[in-house]
């Protein structure tokens, strides 16, 4: 018994250390964002929210934040819509080349962001769409569709195949069945996809850096700041970005977990308890 406990304790410590290692840079940045001293050093120069104040007062940062929000929300909406459509075609139809279609749909995040960014820049400037906010939106849509699609596809996979047919059988046209049955069933995954796509866009800088021109987003602004000077403002902005995108990811997780288990069990073939 005793050795079993020791092993458990050792494993838990190991896990805690591993997590600490992963999050150490972020924690450090978070701690020094409240440091009164300009240069990060040990020991701390005292608690201060000065850098947050400076960061928020910087018009470039404010503009970047504003841009980031517009890009994140717009691209998440578009990516989720396209992701749903892609997942639904996969769920509903069988056709020649379906595997190739799925592989292509899931491809973008596997391409190094630098390459994707460069390619996007070349392409968008050819068609006269580069250097503006909509350029970033287009790129982030392409980049986050696979995340949205994967989440929605997972949820559709849990849907009883008879459910949609049952709606048709009760007089719902294909369009009505989609609206009244498929959409409500996948709603948790759709919301999760929205938040995840927002999170992906919110802290993506590489592609945005290539295509943004003068309409830079917050992550791009951080990069610019770092290139010019080492200001603790960066710590403050970084912490803010981290908190926002973590919140979005957590919300996405909660959406998925909240409604899924009871619904999956609703139509499984199970033995009646005979209470009726």
């Amino acid at each position, binding site marked *: 018994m005793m050795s079993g406990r020791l092993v458990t304790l050792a494993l838990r410590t190991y896990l805690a250390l591993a997590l600490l290692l992963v999050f150490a840079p972020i924690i450090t940045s978070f701690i020094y964002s409240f440091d009164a001293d300009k240069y990060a050093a040990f020991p701390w120069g005292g608690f201060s929210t000065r850098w947050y104040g400076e960061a928020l007062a910087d018009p470039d940062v404010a503009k970047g934040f504003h841009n980031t929000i517009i890009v994140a929300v717009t691209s998440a909406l578009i990516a989720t819509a396209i992701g749903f459509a892609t997942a639904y075609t996969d769920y509903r139809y069988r056709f020649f080349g379906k595997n190739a279609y799925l592989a292509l749909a899931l491809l973008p995040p596997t391409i190094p962001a630098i390459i994707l960014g460069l390619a996007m820049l070349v392409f968008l400037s050819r068609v006269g769409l580069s250097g503006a906010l909509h350029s970033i939106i287009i790129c982030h849509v392409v980049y986050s569709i696979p995340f949205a699609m994967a989440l929605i596809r997972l949820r559709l996979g849990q849907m009883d195949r008879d459910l949609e047919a049952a*709606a048709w059988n009760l007089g719902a*046209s294909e369009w*009505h069945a989609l609206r009244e049955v498929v959409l409500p069933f996948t709603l948790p995954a759709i919301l999760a996809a929205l938040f995840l796509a927002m999170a992906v866009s919110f802290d993506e800088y590489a592609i945005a850096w290539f295509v943004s021109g003068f309409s830079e987003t917050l992550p791009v602004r951080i990069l610019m700041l770092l290139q010019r000077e080492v200001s603790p403002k960066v710590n403050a902005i970084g912490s803010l970005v981290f908190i926002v995108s973590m919140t979005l990811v957590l919300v996405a997780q909660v959406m998925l977990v909240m409604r899924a288990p009871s619904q999956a069990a609703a139509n499984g073939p199970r033995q009646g*308890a005979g209470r009726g």
Partner: protein
Amino acid sequence: MAEPLLVLERLEKRYGGLVAVQSLDLAIAAGEFIAIMGPSGCGKTTTLRMIAGLERPSGGEIRLRGRRLNEIAPWQRDTPMVWQSLALFPFLSVVKNVEFGLKMRGIVAGERRRRAMKWLERLGIAHYRDRPVDKLSGGERQRVALARALVTEPEILLLDEPLAALDANLVVRMQAELKQLQQQLGITFCHVTHSQSEAFAMADRVVIMSEGRLQQAGPPREVYRAPANRFVAEFVGANNILDGTVAEATGERVRVDTGIGAFDVRAAPTRPLAKGAKVALVISADQVNVAAGPAAEGNVVTGTVIGEEFVGAFVTLHVDLGGGTVFRVQLQQHALDKLGSVQGKSLTVTWKPEHAVLLSNA
């Protein structure tokens, strides 16, 4: 007779090279309770799905009240179905599930609620109206599925093995309820099942299918007592089948030579049988008698008991008649008591000529 409610005419369904339903002809009358039965893969569910419009026929025609249905989309037919999986909408409450069909037909909310509640009350689940469907027992969910399908007051209700997932006691109760409901409503029920007891307990007429073809259609008793072919004889009930040839055919009486002796059978005088024609005798296990001593009447053969099976008050004896033929004999428990211990004993097996069925397509 007026045009039947539903007519299937030379109906076919092929998936590539695979034939699921082959040249099926069937007419279903208004108010009839029909059970389509067969082993899995016999095409019964495909037939039902074609009636509902969920599968498109490869050939033939489906007519409801004389109207050709083949090209009509499922949502434009009024052929609601109770699914094997029930397919209740998990994100809707009980009453919202039932209202679904009415909502799709554009009926206003108040009227919808009133009509849905009427059905919930009728099926005794009105108090569950606002429950999510996954918080109900199997039997309750069954009722929700029924109410949801019946709320549009269709002329025909399709049932795809809806009782398959229920436990045995509940199945018997639901069978009785379904039958009663069908008689009260006077609408057509078309029930697909692989269970003989389910089909025979409820249906006015049983349709037996195998390998995409209709094998026999008729009232349960007729199918049970006079199987039309070997498949039906093997599939329905507990039948003993003896292959043989015609030795003598005089009027109604035919003598058949089999590997274990020659037996008399009363043949239906539909077509004359030539001497030497290959036939099969079907003798239902419950029409066979056994005795310890010699017997004089009917067809007599002796055999050794090699096994006993007990189901409730009934016993099925397996009697080896020699030549690789094993007969099943169904007895009541008290009849067996009179014989004493039978295991390994030699018994006389008899049956009356009129209790055997002659199949000419052996």
